[in-house]
C-alpha cells in the first residue's frame, strides 16, 4: 500500500515535471514562432526601405524632416506602420531625424504601384524645391490553390513557362515539354528546372490559333510527339547530359494514338484536323459508329466490364459509344472541351475529370462518375488559377496533367490527382 502511494507520488511528480517541460516547450515554440512571424512580416520591406532612405538622405543631407506616408498600392494598411518604422530607422542611421511636428523639410512617401511592380516614391520638399526619389519593388506572386471536399482533387504545379505548352511527359529525372514549334528537355535541380536541350519541330504549315499536341512514352527512354501535320520520335536518358537528348520530326498526317488510358482490345487512333483544333471524327480501326468531329475522347470502364468511348463533340455534346451504339450523356453542360479518365481507385474506381465550360466565371476541374447515361459530380470543383488549355491522363492512368494559362499568359503544368475520402 505504502509502496503504491510512493509510486503514485512518483508518477504524479513525473507527470507534473513532464507537463512543465511540455509547457516550456510550447512557450519556447510560441516565442520562436512569434519571432519568426515578426521577421517574416518585416523582411519584405527592409531592403526597399533601406534603398529609399538612402536616396532621401542623399537629397536632404543630415538634419530633420517631417515624414508622411500614404498608401496607393495593394499593400495592406496594416503593414504601413512597419514600413514607416523601417524608414525612420534607416533615415536616422543616415543622419536624418524624423520630426514629429511640421519642419522646414518634409518627405512625402507614396507607396504606389503600376501594372508590373510596386513603386515607392518619396517627394523630398526643401522650401519650395521638390525632388523625387523612387525605388521599384518586385511584385509578389500569390499562389491560389484550393482543393475540393468530397472526393478531393488536388493539383501540384510541376513546371512553369512563358511559352505555350501543348503537352509534357515526366521522365526519370526530367520533363519533356512539347511547345508549338519545339520540343524542350528539362531536368530538375535543387534550384528548379534547367533547360537541357531544345529541338525544332520543323513545322511547315501555319499552326492553328489553338494548337494541340500529345506526348506519349514509347517504352524505355523513348517517346513520341504528335502535332498538327508532324510526328516526332525521341529519347531521353536518365542522365542529364545534354548530348543524350534526341528528337527527330517528319511531316505526317497519320492518325494520333488516343492518349486516354487504353482500354480497348485494339488500340484506336484518331485523325486530327491540322488546320483546326479538333479531331475529324474518323477513327481507325473503325469502331462501328460514325463519330462526329470531337475535341476529346476517353475510354471509360463500365461496371459490367469492358469500356465505353466517351466523346466530347465540337457541338458541345458529350456522347458515349458502347457496343456500336452512340448515346448522348446528360449533365455535361458545365464541361469544357477537355476531359480525361483517371483510375483513382475511389468510389466506382474511375472518374472523368473535366475542365469547366465557358459559362463559368473561372476555370476549374471537377471529377464525375458515369453510372449510366448521366454524369454525377464526384468532387467539388478544383479552381485553377487560369484557363485549362489542355488536359490528359498520366501514362499510368491514375492521375492526369493539366496545362493552365494564367491571366499573365504564363503556362503551368499541373499534376491533378484524387484523394479518396
Amino acid at each position, binding site marked *: 500500500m505504502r509502496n503504491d502511494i510512493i509510486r503514485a507520488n512518483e508518477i504524479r511528480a513525473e507527470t507534473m515535471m513532464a507537463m512543465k517541460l511540455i509547457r516550456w516547450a510550447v512557450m519556447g515554440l510560441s516565442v520562436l514562432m512569434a519571432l519568426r512571424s515578426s521577421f517574416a512580416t518585416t523582411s519584405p520591406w527592409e531592403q526597399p526601405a533601406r534603398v529609399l532612405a538612402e536616396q532621401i538622405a542623399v537629397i536632404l543631407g543630415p538634419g530633420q524632416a517631417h515624414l508622411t506616408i500614404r498608401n*496607393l498600392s495593394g499593400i495592406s494598411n496594416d503593414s504601413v506602420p512597419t514600413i514607416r518604422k523601417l524608414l525612420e530607422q534607416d533615415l536616422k542611421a543616415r543622419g536624418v531625424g524624423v520630426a514629429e511636428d511640421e519642419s522646414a523639410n518634409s518627405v512625402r512617401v*507614396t507607396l*504606389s*504601384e*503600376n*501594372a*508590373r*511592380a*510596386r*513603386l515607392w*516614391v518619396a*517627394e523630398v520638399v526643401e522650401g519650395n524645391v521638390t525632388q*523625387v*526619389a*523612387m525605388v*521599384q519593388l518586385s511584385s509578389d506572386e500569390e499562389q491560389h490553390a484550393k482543393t475540393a471536399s468530397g472526393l478531393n482533387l488536388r493539383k501540384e504545379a510541376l513546371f512553369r513557362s512563358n511559352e505555350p505548352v501543348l503537352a509534357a511527359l515526366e521522365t526519370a529525372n526530367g520533363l519533356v515539354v512539347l511547345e508549338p514549334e519545339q520540343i524542350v528537355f528539362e531536368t530538375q535541380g535543387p534550384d528548379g528546372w534547367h533547360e537541357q536541350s531544345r529541338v525544332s519541330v520543323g513545322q*511547315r504549315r*501555319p*499552326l*492553328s*490559333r*489553338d*494548337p494541340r499536341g500529345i506526348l506519349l512514352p514509347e517504352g524505355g527512354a523513348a517517346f513520341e510527339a504528335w502535332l498538327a501535320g508532324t510526328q516526332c520520335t525521341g529519347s531521353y536518358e536518365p542522365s542529364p547530359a545534354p548530348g543524350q537528348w534526341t528528337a527527330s520530326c517528319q511531316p505526317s498526317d497519320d492518325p494520333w494514338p488516343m492518349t486516354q488510358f487504353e482500354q480497348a482490345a485494339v488500340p484506336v487512333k484518331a485523325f486530327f484536323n491540322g*488546320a*483546326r*483544333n*479538333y479531331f475529324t471524327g474518323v477513327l481507325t480501326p473503325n469502331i462501328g459508329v460514325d463519330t462526329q468531329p470531337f*475535341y476529346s475522347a476517353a475510354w471509360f470502364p463500365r461496371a459490367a466490364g469492358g469500356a465505353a468511348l466517351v466523346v466530347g463533340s*465540337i457541338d*458541345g455534346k458529350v456522347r458515349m459509344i458502347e457496343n456500336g451504339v452512340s448515346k448522348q450523356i446528360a449533365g455535361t453542360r458545365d464541361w*469544357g*472541351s*477537355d476531359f480525361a479518365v483517371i483510375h483513382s481507385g475511389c468510389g466506382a474506381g474511375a472518374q472523368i475529370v473535366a*475542365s*469547366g*465550360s*465557358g*459559362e*463559368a*466565371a*473561372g*476555370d*476549374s476541374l471537377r471529377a464525375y462518375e458515369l453510372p449510366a447515361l448521366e454524369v454525377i459530380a464526384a468532387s467539388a470543383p478544383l479552381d485553377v*488559377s*487560369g*484557363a*485549362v*488549355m489542355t488536359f490528359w491522363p498520366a501514362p499510368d492512368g491514375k492521375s492526369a496533367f493539366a496545362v493552365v*494559362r*494564367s*491571366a*499573365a*499568359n504564363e503556362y503551368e503544368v499541373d499534376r491533378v490527382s484524387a484523394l479518396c475520402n
Partner: protein
Amino acid sequence: MFRRFAISFLITMVTLPMAARTRPHYGGTLHVETEGDPWQRPDGIARRLVFDGLTTLDSRGTVQSALATGWETDSGDHRWQFRLRAAVHFHDGSPLTATAVVQSLNLDCPANCPWATVRAVGSIVVFTSDAPMPNLPALLAGDQFLIALTVTEDGKASNGNIGTGPFQVASFSNELLALAANETCWQGRPFADAIEIHAHRPVHDQWLDLSIGRADVVEVPAETLRQAQQQRLTVLVSPPATLLGLEVADTGTLSNPMMRAAIAASIDRSALSNVIFQKQGEATASLLPQSLTGFSFLFPVDRDLNKAHELRGGLNTPTLTLSVQGDGTMKLASQRIALNLKEAGFNAQEVNPGGTPHADLMLRMIPLEGGEPSAVLESVSRSAGTAAIPADASSASLYKAERDFLERHTLIPLVDLPKAYATGARVRDLALHADGMPDLAGASLGDAP
C-alpha cells in the same frame, strides 16, 4: 477614379483569360460596327485584321515577334536588324520580302521616324540612326508601322489594302467592308470565316443593331460606358488606352514658355473628366497613366487659375486658334477648354482643322500603345514633335524624361480614357489588344457550325 480604372482593368484582364474554356469553334461571320472609318489611323478596326507589324505586343504590352522572328542591336541601339519570318505571303500570294517591308515603312513614315534610314539586306531589315533607338522593337508594333504591300509582283502600285494579316479584303462598298479569313495566315487561320464591318454607323444605331442581333461587336465610347452598363450590355473595357491631349504650338505668342505654362494651369481637367466624359476617364497631367508608371500623381492635375494669371503676367495675347480632331464629345471638350482659357485671360476661337493646318492649339486623342512605359513615352512625345527617350529603364529615368518633356508645355495631358466594346451573346473569347483594340481574329462564334 484610379481605383475604378484599376477595377475595370482587373475585370477585363482577369476575367477574359481566366474564364473557363471551351475550345473555340471555327466558322461563321462576325458582324462589327464602327462609327469611324475602318481604315483610319491610328485605330481603324480593319487595320490590325489585314496587316501585321514586324513586332507585336501581347496582352500585357510586352513585345513579341510577328513578321520578324528576331532582332539584334548594337551596343548603343544605333543600328537594329530584324530577321524576317520565312514563308510568309501577302494576300495576293506575293512573298513577304525585306524590300517590301522597307517600301511599306518608307510610305508609313515619310518624316519624324524613330529611325534615320531603313534598308533591306537580304532577308534582313536594317534600321540605323545617329540617335539611340532603345524602344524600336516596341515602336514597330505600333499601328502606324503595319506592313502593307505597296508594289505588286508585276510592278504595279498596290491598292494599299493587301497585307499578311488574318483577314483579307473581299469587298468594300456602301460602307460595308467584307473581310475573308486568310486560310494560310502565318499565325494560323482565324476562327471566324468572315468579318463584316459596317462603317460610319452612329453609336446609337450600333447599339440598336446589337440588341436585335444584327451586330456582334459595337463601340462603347467612354462617355457612354455608364449608359451601356445600365442597358446591361456585355462590355469589355480596356485600361487607359487613349490620352486626350492639347497640343500647343511654340510659335508666335506661344513661343513664350510662360504662356504655354499658363494655358496648362488654366484647364480644369476634372470638369472634362467628370462632365464631358461622365467620370469614365481619369483626369491626368502626365503622359503615361498610373497603371504604366506608378508615379502619375507626381504631376498635379488641379487647376490653378491664380498661377495661370501670374504666368500670363497681364500680357494681352491675340486670339488663339483651336482645332479639334473629332466630333461630338470632342467639340464639347474644346468648348469647355475655350471657356477655361477665357477665364485665364486667353481668347480661343475654334477653327476647322482642315482649313487651318497650324492652329495654335489642337485637341486630339493620342493612342497609348503598349505596356513598355519607355516606348509609350517615346511614341506619345514623338507624336507631338519631340521624342522623349529615358536614359535607362529605371523608373527614375522615366520620370525625369517625362517631366523634362512636360515642362515644355507643348503637349498638355488632360484625360486618360479607356476603349470599350459591347459584344453580342454569340461572341466567344474576344479579348482586347494592349492598345485597347478588339482581337477579332482570336474571337469565335458560339453558334458557328
